[in-house]
C-alpha cells in the first residue's frame, strides 16, 4: 500500500507553513508597517483639511508618498492618483478613458490573459456600445505585435495590455506597444500590478499613458493602489467614476487613506532600492526550483516564456498529476494551481488555456510565487516535498501508467462528462 503524504524533514530555519503565493498577495514589510503606524494614531489628520496642522501633516505625508511612487516608475508626483487598489485603478482607467474619449472613437484593444478587472470592465463597456478586440497570445503567453498592428483602426481610443501576467509571470513587450500607440495617437494603459517594484518600469521610456499599481503585491498594505495618469504628451483625461469632494484632481473623490498611502509610498521606495539585489536572489531561487523538478521528474513543463518573465514566478505543469491533489499533499506550503478544482467555476485557468495548452496540462499546473521573504532553504524543502508527492501521485495515475506503456492518450476516446 502506498502512502501519499511524503515525509520530508523540515530543515533548520524553515517554519511551516511556507508562503509561496506572492502573486496573490505579499506580507507587509515590517519597515512599511513602521512608516504607517503614526498615521493611524497621532497623525490621523484628513489630507484635505487645509486649515490646521493635522491636515498639513497628513497632506505632506501623502505628497511624500506620491513622490516615492512616481520615482519608482519614472513619473512626476502630480501624475499619481490614489485609489483603493488595482481593480479600482483598472476600472477607472478603462471606463474613465472610454467615457472621456467617446467622441473620438469606441474601440478598445486588450488581450485574453488580462486580469478579470480588465476583462470584465471591457465586457461591461461592450454592453454600452463599445467595441473590444481581445488579442490572442502566442504559446509563450506574449501578444504578437503584428496582431496588435492589425487590430488598430480609426476608432481605436485605447490599448490596455498588462505589463506582467499574474499566473505565468510573462512580461509583455510593453515598450513596443507604447511606441506603436504613441505613433498612432492611441492611449496606452497597462495593468502593472505584478511588475511595479519587481522589474524596471519607466512610463516615459515605455510610452505608457496610464498605469495601474497596487500596494499589497509589493509588501505594502491591502486596500490601497494608484493610477498613473500622464499629464503631458499627451495630457490624458479621465472621467471620474466616483463623484464627491473632487479629490485627486477631480478624478477620484473620497478621503485619502493616509496610512495606506504612506505604506504604498514606503513599499515603492524599498522596492526601488532593493530591486537589483532582490532580482538576483529571486531568479536564483526560482531557477533552482525548476532545475530540481526537471532533474528529478519527467513530464514537467514550464508554462509561458522563460526569457520574458518576472524574477519570482515559476509556473509549471506536473503532467498526469491533477493540481488540486498535488496541493492537498503539500498543505503546509501555500502555492496555487490552475486546476479546475481549485477555481470557483470548475474551469481550468483561462490564462493557461490561452497558451494553447490542453486542459489536462492546465489541470496539472502549479504557480510558485517567490517573494522577498522566501529563502533558499524553503525552496529546497518545497522542491523535495513536491517531487515526493508527484512521484507518489503518479503511482496512482492511470494516465502516467498508460503513457509509460507507450499509449497515445490523444487516441483514446474519452467519455467526457
Amino acid at each position, binding site marked *: 500500500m502506498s502512502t501519499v503524504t511524503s515525509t520530508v524533514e523540515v530543515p533548520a530555519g524553515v517554519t511551516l507553513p511556507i508562503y509561496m503565493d506572492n502573486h496573490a498577495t505579499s506580507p507587509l514589510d515590517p519597515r512599511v508597517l513602521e512608516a504607517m503606524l503614526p498615521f493611524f494614531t497621532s497623525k490621523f489628520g484628513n489630507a484635505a483639511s487645509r486649515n490646521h496642522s493635522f491636515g498639513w501633516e497628513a497632506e505632506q505625508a501623502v505628497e511624500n508618498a506620491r513622490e516615492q511612487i512616481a520615482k519608482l516608475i519614472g513619473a512626476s508626483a502630480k501624475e499619481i492618483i490614489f485609489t483603493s487598489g488595482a481593480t479600482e485603478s483598472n476600472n477607472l482607467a478603462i471606463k474613465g478613458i472610454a467615457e472621456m474619449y467617446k467622441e473620438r472613437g469606441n474601440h478598445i484593444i486588450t488581450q485574453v490573459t488580462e486580469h478579470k478587472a480588465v476583462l470584465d470592465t471591457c465586457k461591461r463597456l461592450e454592453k454600452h456600445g463599445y467595441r473590444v478586440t481581445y488579442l490572442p497570445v502566442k504559446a509563450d503567453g506574449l501578444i504578437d505585435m503584428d496582431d496588435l498592428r492589425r487590430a488598430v483602426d480609426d476608432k481605436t481610443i485605447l490599448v490596455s495590455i498588462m505589463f506582467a501576467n499574474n499566473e505565468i509571470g510573462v512580461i509583455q513587450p510593453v515598450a513596443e506597444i507604447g511606441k506603436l500607440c504613441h505613433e498612432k495617437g492611441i492611449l496606452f494603459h497597462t495593468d502593472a500590478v505584478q511588475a511595479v517594484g519587481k522589474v524596471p518600469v519607466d512610463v516615459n521610456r515605455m510610452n505608457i499613458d496610464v498605469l495601474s499599481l497596487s500596494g499589497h503585491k509589493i509588501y505594502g498594505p491591502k486596500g490601497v493602489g494608484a493610477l498613473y495618469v500622464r499629464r503631458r504628451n499627451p495630457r490624458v483625461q479621465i472621467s471620474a467614476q466616483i463623484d464627491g469632494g473632487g479629490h485627486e484632481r477631480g478624478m477620484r473623490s473620497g478621503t485619502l487613506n493616509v496610512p495606506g498611502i504612506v505604506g504604498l509610498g514606503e513599499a515603492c521606495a524599498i522596492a526601488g532600492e532593493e530591486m537589483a539585489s532582490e532580482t538576483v536572489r529571486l531568479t536564483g531561487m526560482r531557477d533552482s526550483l525548476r532545475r530540481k523538478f526537471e532533474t528529478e521528474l519527467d513530464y514537467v513543463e514550464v508554462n509561458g516564456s522563460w526569457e520574458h518573465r518576472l524574477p519570482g514566478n515559476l509556473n509549471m505543469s506536473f503532467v498526469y498529476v491533477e493540481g488540486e491533489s498535488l496541493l492537498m499533499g503539500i498543505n503546509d506550503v501555500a502555492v496555487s494551481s490552475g486546476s479546475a478544482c481549485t477555481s470557483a467555476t470548475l474551469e481550468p485557468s483561462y490564462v493557461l488555456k490561452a497558451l494553447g495548452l490542453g*486542459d489536462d496540462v492546465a489541470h496539472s499546473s502549479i504557480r510558485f510565487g517567490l517573494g522577498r521573504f522566501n529563502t533558499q532553504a524553503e525552496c529546497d524543502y518545497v522542491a523535495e516535498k513536491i517531487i515526493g508527492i508527484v512521484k507518489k501521485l503518479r503511482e496512482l495515475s492511470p494516465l502516467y501508467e498508460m503513457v509509460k506503456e507507450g499509449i497515445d492518450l490523444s487516441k483514446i476516446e474519452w467519455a467526457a462528462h
Partner: protein
Amino acid sequence: MAYSDKVVDHYNNPRNVGTLDKSSDTVGTGLVGAPECGDVMRLQIRVNPETQVIEEAKFKTFGCGSAIASSSLATEWVKGKTVSEAMEIKNTDIVKELALPPVKIHCSVLAEDAIRAAIGDWKKKNGVTEAAEVAVAAH
C-alpha cells in the same frame, strides 16, 4: 477547501492501488472520465467465474483528492460482493460515506460509473446476460 477526515485518509492511504491484467477473462476494466475534465478513473475487478464474487479490485485515478478517495472507497466496497451486489452501489452512498461537498459530487458519480464500466467489461468478455446472472444468484 476543507476535506473530510475520510477523504484525507483515503488520499493519504489509498486502498488497492494497482493494475490487473486487463487481457485476462476474469478481469473487468472500467476507464471513465477524461484528462481534459481533470479526472480519469480506472477501476479493475477480478471476478471468480464460479461464484461471480469480486475477489480483487484495483484502481488508479488522476484527479483531485475527492476523486482519489471515491475510487479508493469503491474498490473497498466492491471487494467480496457479487457482481450483481456491486451494481447496487450508488454514488449517493459514496457521497454520504466521504461527506463530499456538492461541488465534489461528480467524483462519486464517476466512481459509480467506473464500477459499472468494469462490470460491463467483465460481462462482455464472459458473455454474461442478465438471465445467467439471476441463475447464479439463485444458486
